[in-house]
């Protein structure tokens, strides 16, 4: 008998092809009640439901195999800039599925859910202290919805002042979500060019404000180049002097935690990405939780329901005359709040103080280690992330995308590439504070190795063509997917 190498099946079967008539994956008790009257013919469904029939083991195996085709934080480091892929502690999942919270109906009378409301109140308190805002709403479902809420608050504030200002300034280095959110709120987007240092251009902002129709500025701080907007106070002042508001995209809040507070700088509104800063799981793309903090003058515009405390009791209030109104079903992604609350309470004051500090230190380590091999877009100390480009490697015909796919051969997830748009061939790296220095060092070594490969004669063909080569899947044909749309089993 000879041992055979175990190989992955060439195809992972689609669920519908695993279906066998009569197989079952459920166990439900018989109804205690007599069968209800027949549904009228005009309303009833007649087809066999388009679902597979499988035993539990078939399903367990199917999804276990699928899971094994994913890269994950549990499996390795994600140096993805602007994504803050830090470790998701398992204790979060214990509290985040706790039976004393998991089955609570969102419309339960407030008197019966005091523990859940107290937790929300506590979490808001923690976020207020960390960010320096007057109040924080926990309702928004994700960062993008947080932006939406922030912009609606700007609109409501302007309306309350009798102002018809309709322009939002957005730097060219911003995430695409910023202009998309502004457009969804009916604002006109004005793009701001970054200055030579990669920062906001104070004079340009002043000039736009003087035209009199600017309602707000959306700023990411630190910006997407990983640079702290050192003139943020001055910029906030210019905006306020012109009766305009400052919205901070909190996507990069991780860099500031424990070091500086956006509310203190004069920022009026900011959303948090709980999955980035406070370790709720990324989950392959969601769900998120995008709490929004506001300064004192904007509190009355927050979305409903508003959490209130009287004595020792808590309630949700749905009537608030100046509020922008409700923005999603019920009071938000409560089970995600439970997770980020757990995280912050475990870290406590001492741990929270280290979040930004360690994130910044590790990013700067990557900056100095790799600036010999790669072109640094802005040669200065960075905050929590650092942006390189493929400028040097291009000379040998190797581009950022090649480097990204080559990293996969070495077992690392690629960094964020081609973003921000203002750095051609950008390679954006964010190690996060939960990685050890040894892991970050290992990543740097691999990046150096790849940089070295690019200097060899004919390196593109030798190392880069056809990468990734060591994974169950080689390069995916995204063009075919877009040209011949196949979006379901049956199409």
């Amino acid at each position: 008998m000879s041992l055979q190498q175990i190989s992955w099946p060439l195809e992972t079967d689609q669920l519908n092809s695993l279906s066998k008539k009569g197989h079952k994956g459920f166990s439900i008790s018989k109804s205690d009640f007599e069968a209800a009257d027949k549904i009228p013919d005009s309303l009833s469904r007649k087809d066999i439901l388009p679902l597979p029939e499988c035993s539990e083991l078939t399903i367990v195996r199917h999804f276990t195999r699928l899971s094994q085709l994913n890269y994950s934080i549990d499996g390795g480091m994600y140096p993805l800039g602007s994504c803050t892929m830090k470790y998701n502690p398992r204790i979060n999942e214990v509290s985040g599925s706790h039976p004393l919270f998991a089955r609570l109906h969102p419309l339960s009378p407030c008197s019966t859910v005091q523990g859940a409301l107290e937790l929300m109140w506590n979490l808001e308190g923690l976020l207020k202290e960390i960010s320096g805002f007057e109040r924080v709403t926990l309702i928004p479902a994700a960062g993008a919805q947080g932006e939406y809420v922030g912009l609606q608050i700007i609109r409501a504030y302007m309306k309350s002042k009798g102002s018809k200002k309709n322009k939002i300034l957005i730097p060219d280095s911003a995430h695409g979500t910023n202009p998309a959110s502004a457009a969804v709120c009916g604002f006109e987007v004005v793009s701001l060019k970054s200055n030579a240092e990669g920062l906001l251009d104070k004079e340009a902002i002043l000039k736009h404000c003087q035209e009199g129709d600017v309602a707000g500025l959306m700023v990411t701080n630190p910006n997407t180049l990983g640079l702290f907007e050192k003139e943020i106070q001055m910029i906030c002042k210019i905006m306020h002097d012109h009766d305009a508001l400052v919205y901070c995209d909190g996507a990069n809040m991780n860099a500031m935690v424990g070091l500086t507070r956006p509310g203190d700088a004069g920022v009026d509104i900011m959303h948090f990405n709980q999955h980035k800063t406070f370790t709720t799981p990324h989950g392959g793309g969601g769900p998120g939780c995008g709490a929004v903090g506001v300064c004192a003058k904007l509190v009355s515009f927050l979305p409903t329901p508003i959490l209130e405390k009287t004595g020792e009791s808590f309630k949700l209030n749905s009537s608030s005359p100046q509020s922008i109104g409700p923005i999603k079903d019920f009071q938000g992604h409560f089970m995600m709040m439970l997770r980020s609350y757990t995280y912050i309470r475990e870290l406590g004051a001492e741990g929270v103080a280290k979040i930004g500090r360690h994130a910044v230190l590790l990013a700067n380590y990557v900056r100095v280690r790799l600036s010999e091999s790669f072109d640094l877009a802005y040669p200065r100390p960075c905050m929590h992330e650092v942006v390189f480009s493929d400028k040097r490697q291009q000379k040998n015909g190797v581009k950022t995308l090649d480097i990204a796919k080559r990293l996969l051969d070495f077992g690392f997830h690629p960094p964020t590439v081609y973003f921000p748009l203002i750095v051609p061939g950008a390679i954006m790296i964010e190690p996060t504070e939960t990685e050890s220095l040894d892991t970050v060092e290992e990543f740097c070594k691999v990046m150096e190795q790849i940089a070295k490969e690019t200097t060899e004669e004919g390196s593109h063909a030798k190392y880069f063509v056809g990468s990734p080569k060591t994974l169950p899947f080689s390069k995916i044909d995204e063009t075919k997917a877009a040209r011949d749309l196949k979006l379901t089993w049956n199409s």
Partner: protein
Amino acid sequence: MRYLPLTKDEENKILKACGEASFESLTREIPENLRVKGKLNLPEALCETDLLQHIQDLGEKNSAAKMHCLIGQGAYDHTWPSVVDYLVTRGEFLTAYTPYQPEVSQGTLQAIFEFQSMISGLMGMEVSNASLYDGSTALVEAILMAARLQNKNSGEILISEGTFDHTKKILRTYLESLGFELVNWKASAEGLCETKTPELKNPVAVVAQSPNKWGLIEDWSTVSSVAQKMNVKSIAHISHAHSLALFEAPGKKGIDLASGEGQAFGIPAGFGGPYLGLFACSKKDVRQMPGRIVGQTNDARGRRAYCVTLSTREQHIRREKATSNICSNQSLMALRATIYLSLMGPEGLKEVAQNSRNAAEASKKIIQKHIQNNKGFKFLNGTIFNEFSLLYTQDNEGKINKLQELAQKHNILLGTKVSAPQESGFKGALTLAFTERFKKTEAGKLEKIFGEVLV
């Protein structure tokens, strides 16, 4: 600190490598007056044992956690196989990034593809997206898509009176600031959509929800024919995903766009979320569909594979011209639903739905005995799924309150009060929702509660 491994020595090593004397000099771009001085005013760290005890202590303050919940209105207390929790908490799913690098995200991608396949099938439509935040925001997106399909950026949205009140308020937040107007499509005295509609100047879409807020099943043919007459898009909103197991799919009755809430598919009520927004439409309109979409393709070696496709609709490419500002989907919740549906299969899903319906109809009969010959109460006579409404007159509101109070003493959360159909002449409606969790024991309590209050 177990999550933050950097030691003091390593901190110094990094500072040295950077040629900086201190952390403050490394971060000199933060103005001095903006620096946090000392520690923030936060509670001290908790060790694992104390932390879990603290969460437990907070949980104990939720008396609702130990009650049987008959509240519905968009969130339902169904059961699910434990293997759902086991599979979704695998680290490879739980801690994976958005699947933008398809070569290392095939697990998430294929699961989404299967989600799209099952949801579009259940909706009776050709395509589905990878999910949106929740039911109400999915409906917002459906209305905006209907407007885009007709190149309209203002106009009237005719919306059924039977749509949840909270959903209508959310629609108002989103749509009124963009120049759309919500117009009430009055229900019949029995709480259902009628072919009679108000005069509209510039209609954009006709929207109805089923099961509606009184628990009644709407006939999609009525909705689609009214929309056709106005020459606008029809939108079906499914408030309880299990209803699709028993009632005709909207796509089979001429509906253009479907949205819905998928929480009932294996997702805990969780005091409000995260839930699962469903969205389906026909293939010809897919380029106007909001949200992430996964398509099937091949890898370079010809192996079947998947990737995010039609990304040019999305915010990271289109910026202010994107179809929506949404960057995420409810990926883990979509995964829960996918696993739940594949375990239940066609029979299991029908059985859960049927059990829930049986429980609701049986409870209706129990209550019926106590309101007979009492003109102050009434049931609507349409077809229900798992939720129904007890209409009451102004005089009887006190009795409803009493019923709810007494029920709490028996560890039952006895539904929610909403407005009654305007044409019905009643003041309000107590809505009660039932799932397969409702058994004889609870039915006995219901009998007792109503018997005691409505003598």
